[in-house]
């Protein structure tokens, strides 16, 4: 010990050893207290055991903006099994009562006992054997329940839908999967969880909080009463009711117009960012994804080549085409590249590149307002070229381009807006690095990428982003993040949805853009949308080139011009010219929005649209959603 005794702190070993001894003395005394001095624990264990009954809260209901009930609950029943208590069990009688055969019984039993599928399995606690009994089955079982020891019935609720609309928007609920079980301790096997749409994005609001009742049982499993007279029980807290900004009549009408067509309609109230209508076509009845046929119906939807399970309004990405031009005009004016008076010429196309991109016949040269009205391609190509080539303002094309991109980001393009729906896509707005890489040099110029000036090329946007941009013009420069839920009962909305997002571009500039869009309706490309003298509509058509097939038909707009009440975007996939399908649909939707009905004079248009079928015959996987692979395709 020679070396250690020189160590000045060697005595501290005694303190450490003392700590260990003391702790053990305390612990052994505690054991003595628990095991010898406290006979009540022995009694507890010998004669009583706990039965924890989970009390399921009612899932929150969903209402539309006018208070119409959309989604509510109906009671169903689950069969629970406590294997240890089953004893003498007449399996045949049990199967007959539940109307299942012996092999199904064995399969359900094996599923229940498989710890990989059911990590919480225990033969002592109630385990889910079979779910969603009908009322009749429940009645039969209830009568015979005394014959089946160890079998319990647990009340559950099932989602019911008042309207056969908005399947993909509302989403569906289903039993939790293993991932959710492992990542959130709230769930146990057999619980239901929102899997898509609002059911998923507002799961925490809708699900409420489970309660529990603790009962005491004797050794034979008979209930002896509440543990501590219910002092440890917890009542379930019902899920929160949600009120949507969506108007169900408008929504249903939108789905009706879009029947036999693929695409989307999004309508936003600019003053609040509330989504009043969000159609993703083809749509389906949410009721088919409840109850026993869930599996089969889900498979059908999943295999449908037109992909009804994808919410195109937020996850479909399309080249915005000419609907992109107003944003370009705003950026060029903000950066001082053009003024209200700046005129560019057009000879059926963009002269510096030999008339490409092509344009149609109209007066020339044009300034911004008529350029928007006639949707002149050349004007915006000149504008982009002037901006990217401006070496007084920007050091090089990279800087100019990134300034350009930053404005578009502030308008919500190329970024997730943050809508309260799952699987929102970002769209795509390239940055200078992207082109440096693709073009393999850094000194490229506007002419290399000219198609983005007219919303083609690499640019991709979701219908929601396009509608949101319409709302920005309607508000003359700001937006609220679009959202479907306008009210959570008893809780405020996330501040994300109650805060103005400014684009950094002045009111006066958007006033000019709005004028251009108003002229497009009164005397330009989207005259079909003209609702004067009642309402002054501002709009912009779009025909976006689709490398995979017929062009997509787009319409974007808002109304009325002053003090706007609604902004809209319509996309009909493969609908060709904007004016041929998207604008008429836009007109009808605005009619419905403002008048609640379609005037007789427009019935022919309604008939034409409803009877139009645009479903591509061969609709392969890649076509279902336009991906940002257009660049590769061109090469």
């Amino acid at each position, binding site marked *: 010990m020679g070396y250690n005794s020189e160590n000045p702190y060697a005595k501290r070993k005694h303190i450490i050893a003392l700590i260990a001894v003391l702790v053990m003395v305390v612990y052994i005394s505690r054991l003595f207290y628990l095991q010898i001095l406290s006979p009540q624990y022995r009694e507890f*264990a010998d004669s009583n055991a706990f039965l924890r009954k989970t009390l399921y809260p009612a899932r929150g209901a969903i209402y539309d903006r006018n208070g119409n009930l959309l989604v509510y609950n109906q009671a169903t029943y689950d069969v629970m099994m406590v294997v240890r208590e089953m004893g003498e069990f007449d399996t045949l009688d049990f199967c007959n009562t539940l109307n299942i055969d012996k092999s199904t019984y064995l399969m359900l039993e094996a599923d229940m006992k498989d710890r990989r599928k059911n990590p919480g399995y225990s033969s002592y606690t109630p385990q889910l054997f079979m779910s969603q009994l009908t009322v009749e089955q429940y009645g039969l079982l209830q009568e015979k329940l005394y014959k089946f020891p160890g079998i319990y019935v647990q009340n559950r609720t099932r989602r019911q839908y008042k309207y056969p609309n908005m399947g993909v928007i509302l989403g569906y609920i289903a039993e939790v999967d293993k991932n959710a079980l492992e990542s959130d301790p709230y769930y146990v096997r057999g619980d239901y969880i929102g899997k898509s749409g609002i059911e998923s994005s507002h799961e925490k609001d809708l699900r409420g909080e489970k309660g529990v009742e603790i009962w005491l049982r004797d050794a034979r499993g008979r209930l002896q009463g509440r543990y501590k007279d219910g002092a440890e029980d917890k009542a379930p807290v019902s899920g929160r009711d949600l009120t949507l900004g969506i108007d169900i009549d408008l929504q249903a009408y939108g789905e009706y117009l879009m029947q036999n067509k693929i695409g989307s309609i999004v309508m936003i109230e600019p003053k609040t960012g509330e989504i009043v209508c969000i159609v993703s076509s083809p749509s389906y009845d949410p009721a088919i994804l409840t109850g026993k046929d869930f599996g089969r119906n889900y498979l059908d939807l999943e295999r449908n080549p037109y992909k009804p399970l994808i919410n195109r309004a937020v996850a479909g990405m399309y080249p915005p085409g000419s609907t992109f031009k107003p944003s370009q005009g705003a950026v060029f004016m903000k950066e001082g590249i053009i003024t209200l008076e700046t005129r560019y010429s057009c000879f059926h196309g963009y002269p510096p590149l030999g008339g490409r991109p092509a344009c149609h016949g109209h007066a020339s040269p044009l300034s911004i307002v008529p350029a928007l009205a006639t949707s002149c391609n050349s004007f915006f190509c000149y504008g982009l070229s002037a901006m990217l080539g401006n070496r007084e303002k920007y050091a090089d094309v990279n800087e100019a381009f990134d300034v350009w991109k930053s404005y578009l980001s502030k308008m919500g393009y190329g970024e997730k807006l943050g809508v309260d729906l799952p699987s929102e896509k970002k769209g795509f707005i390239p940055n200078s690095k992207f082109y440096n890489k693709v073009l393999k040099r850094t000194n490229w110029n506007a002419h290399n990428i000219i198609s983005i000036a007219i919303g083609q090329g690499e640019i991709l946007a979701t219908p929601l982003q396009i509608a949101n941009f319409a709302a920005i013009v309607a508000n003359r420069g700001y937006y609220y993040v679009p959202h479907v839920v306008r009210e959570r009962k008893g809780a405020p909305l996330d501040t994300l949805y109650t805060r103005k997002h400014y684009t950094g571009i002045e009111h006066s500039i958007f006033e000019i853009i709005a004028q251009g869009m108003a002229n497009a309706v009164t005397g330009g490309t989207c005259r079909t949308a003209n609702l004067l003298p009642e309402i002054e509509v501002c709009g912009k058509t779009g025909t976006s080139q689709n490398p995979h097939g017929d062009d997509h038909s787009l319409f974007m707009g808002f109304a009325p011009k002053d003090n706007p009440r609604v902004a809209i975007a319509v996309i009909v996939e493969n609908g060709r010219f904007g004016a041929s399908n998207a604008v008429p649909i836009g007109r009808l939707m605005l009619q419905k929005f403002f008048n609640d009905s379609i005037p007789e004079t427009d019935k022919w248009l309604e008939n034409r649209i409803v009877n139009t079928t645009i479903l591509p015959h061969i609709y392969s996987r890649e076509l279902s959603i336009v991906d940002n692979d257009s660049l590769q395709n061109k090469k």
Partner: protein
Amino acid sequence: MYLNREEISDRGHVDRLTVWMYVIFLILGWLSVYAASYDIENAAGLFDLSDRSTMQLVWIGTSLVLAFALLKIDTGFYETYAFVFYLAGIFLLIVTYLVAPEINGSRSWLVVGPVRLQPAEFMKFIIALALAKVFSLYDFRLMKRKNLLFTFSIILLPAILVVLQSETGTALVYASFLLVLFREGLPGGILFVLVAAIVYFVLGIKFSDTQMGMFSLGEFITLILIILFTAVLVGNYVKRKKVVRVILGAPASVFLTAYLISFFGVKIDWGLVALIALGTVILYLLYLFFMYGKRVYIYMVAFAIGSFVFLESTEYVFNDVLQPHQRIRIEVALGMKQDFRGAGYHVGQSKIAIGSGGFLGKGFLKGTQTKLKYVPEQDTDFIFCTIAEEAGFVGASIVLILYLCFILRLIYLAERQTSTFGRVYGYGVVSVFLFHLIINIGMVIGIMPVIGIPLPFFSYGGSSLWGFTLLLFIFLRLDKSRRNK
């Protein structure tokens, strides 16, 4: 060279006593896992790898191989590569945090094919090695500021990474290395301050719901504790009974005065009174400092004021900085909120299971309360329940005494090391085992908050068993060759 008998008998031998205790723990541990996961329906699947007890047998077998292999590695290896191990360990923790899937709310499992490993478990021996290496550096003095900082960061860095993985329990295990620092000369005062900080935090938060005037009940209790702790410190460092009497007497008279005033119908804000009481103590200490000019008084003042500031800032951090889910974790651990999966409920069940065991227990495999019945962690964190239920007070006490012998033996082994490296590592081993025992068994018998860390050698799980084996056998290897230096 002369060697006495004892030294000759020790030379080149592994400490057999410790190895035997290790083997006994493994056997008892496996029996407990077998009993805890035993189920009549599934009894047939004894040699099925999905069965927990069979799987545990695999872990035990591999651990024995590992232990044997560790004894074959040269001692110099650990000393030479201690820092390399450390860097690799930190790297692994970062990688784990980045790639690990979320399992039961934590991101600490590295999944490689069918194997799931928890790098945080292996970090225990790595930190112990790193500390041992640091202390054995030439002319190392712990109390130099630079060295102190370095030593603490060795412990803190992995602790932070593990907290990020939501394995707070394991991070607390790293904190147990403070005991090593204590043995190597960290002033007891610092340890006292740290313990005081924990007590303030726990009490301050736990009773923060009840408001009494300008302070909460928690703050009130803590203010009084600050006065008491200051008195203890003064008693220890100043050693003047009169001073201690004043420090305790002045606040007492403040309270008495307030109590008397309350008879005149004046509503007393007791929190404010406690603050005034603390103020008088601080003023008195300042007076002593200016009278005698001894620095020790200013340290005492710093302790009292620092304690108060710490108390107020924990309230702020807890309420305004922590995320709600982190707050709930702490609240559940402190027993303020019932986890709806029922951490509190589990402890209740666990106490019933232990209590029902009685003097001699119900017999092997005859426990009714345990066996995956009510407590899901029956064969991992709560395994001590099974032992106490089936083997009773006698069996449970024997296990505890065996553990005590184990710890004392390790302290003995650590003290007989001839090198600083060996001794520091040895105390690292002691600290980790002692901490696991205190927390795990304390939790099961209901006197410690529920912190999920395993019972060494008993709890089911490969990572923890390997981790403990590594920790122990590296030490036994160092011990075996302690005279070869």
